[in-house]
């Protein structure tokens, strides 16, 4: 399956990557070659094969319901680009 310019722009938007038209052109080439390689899968008969999401056939462990995490806001916010009064700041969100 080929990837087109519009697909790249669409993926870039979904992934919130600010890629312009010129960049997109370059990615069309790279991504096409990757997808060409991936196309080797399309001819494989996988009828009745269960998808494998995890390499081990393990099941989810469950955690006891205990509130044990201390308040570490100051530490966590040391790496934050913009905070005020304990809030993380972003450009105004219109709802």
């Amino acid at each position: 399956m080929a990837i087109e310019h519009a697909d790249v722009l669409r993926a870039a938007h979904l992934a919130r990557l600010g890629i312009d038209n010129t960049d997109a052109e370059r990615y069309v080439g790279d991504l096409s070659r990757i997808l060409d390689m991936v196309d080797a899968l399309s001819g494989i008969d996988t009828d009745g094969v269960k998808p494998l999401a995890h390499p081990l056939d393990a099941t989810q462990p469950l955690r006891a319901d205990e509130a044990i995490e201390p308040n570490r806001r100051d530490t966590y916010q040391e790496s934050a680009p913009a905070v005020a009064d304990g809030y993380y700041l972003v450009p105004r969100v219109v709802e």
Partner: protein
Amino acid sequence: MQWETVIGLEVHVQLATQSKIFSGASTAYGAEPNTQACAVDLGMPGVLPVVNENAVAMAVRFGLAIGAEIPEVSIFERKNYFYPDLPKGYQTSQMAQPIVGPGTIDITLDDGTVNAVRIHHAHLEEDAGKSMHESFHGMTGIDLNRAGTPLLEIVSEPDMRSAREASAYVRALHAIVTYMGISDGNMAEGSMRCDVNVSVRPKGQEAFGTRAEIKNVNSFRFIEQAIECEVERQIDLIEDGGKVVQETRLFDPDLNETRSMRTKEEANDYRYFPCPDLLPMMLDDAYIEHQRSLLPELPSEKRQRFETALGLSAYDASVLASSRAMADYFEQAMQSCGDAKLAANWVQGDLSARLNKAGLDISESPVSATQLGELLARIKDDTINGKAAKQVFADLWDCKGETADQIIEARGLKQVTDTAAIEAIVDQVITDNPVQVTQYREAEPDKRGKMIGFFVGQAMKASRGTANPQQVNALIKSKLDALL
């Protein structure tokens, strides 16, 4: 044209766990911003989720309560989209294999008929944080305390046909989750949030119309209002030759209208895929049966028992079973007085009236169920009459006494049942009111019955309300009739 409304709901119920669904941070409401957002909730690099057993248990019990199938395997998936209150850039949710399969919830309509609403499924997911738009100089502040709070999203089939049915459904759901204690059901704090899918179609048409989704309607009243005005909008639109578009709308209770949410975006593409950080959840029969054994008596079962075992009317039973708090109160009061009907009347009558007037929930009642029950016991054993009981109740409400007995004692409200004492009062009333006695004697026989009321009133007044009214009534009648 005759139109039919079709409604389906997606209700997000916050589960009443101590900690978040994937982390050990507290879920308590109202903390300082971001003080309950731990590294996992913040989506810090390198962190991983681990599932909260209690959230799973609550979801399973909910499923059992609505007669749903609990699949052996359920899977967490990632729903990918960017939003500032969604720290990881994806919400961990369930899609293809949810924890609760199809079930049903019974709703009671205004005319007392019971309808079954089919539940498509219910799934576990994490809540997002909150955005604050004020006081940041044109910026938005993000508080992630709520991020990661466990939600059970309950998705109904489009089985409701009116706003009343929809709100009855939400009430029934509210009753179930609060009965079970799996949610505090506090709609004002967002513990229960409803997305309402509404469409209309010509009556008799099989195919559904195009639906609009009204997001985040958060009170029983608004649900009805929002549906009513959305239905009107859709009908007007179609009758004017327009078409309903599938979109998300918001309800504005001030303007009583729904409006389209401004979306500069093209349709979302959430790119769901199984969360690689979480493994399939396998719930075996032993686990499910254990959860079943923990189920409390549910609203429908309670209603049934109130009718059959306690002999209450269908109406009384459904009102009293409508909430866990109401039912618990009633049952406690009944236990203290030993009379189901008396307790039912008082809880629905005097108590509910006072609570309504004061704007209080039954859980906040100043008169406890035990206090009321002890008061009712005194009515039942003839210690006081109904009138005095109202006075005692008023005093209990105003905290003028600890127990009914104290108030009865202090106010001397003990009913006089001593025949001699009552006879003395009655004789005095007859002596003091010769004019009325004459009128009675001269009245047509069928009018006399009514006239007795005057003498009874006088006698009760003379006893300061403590005389047994039945005794007074009987005595006056026999004495007056003797004078004929």
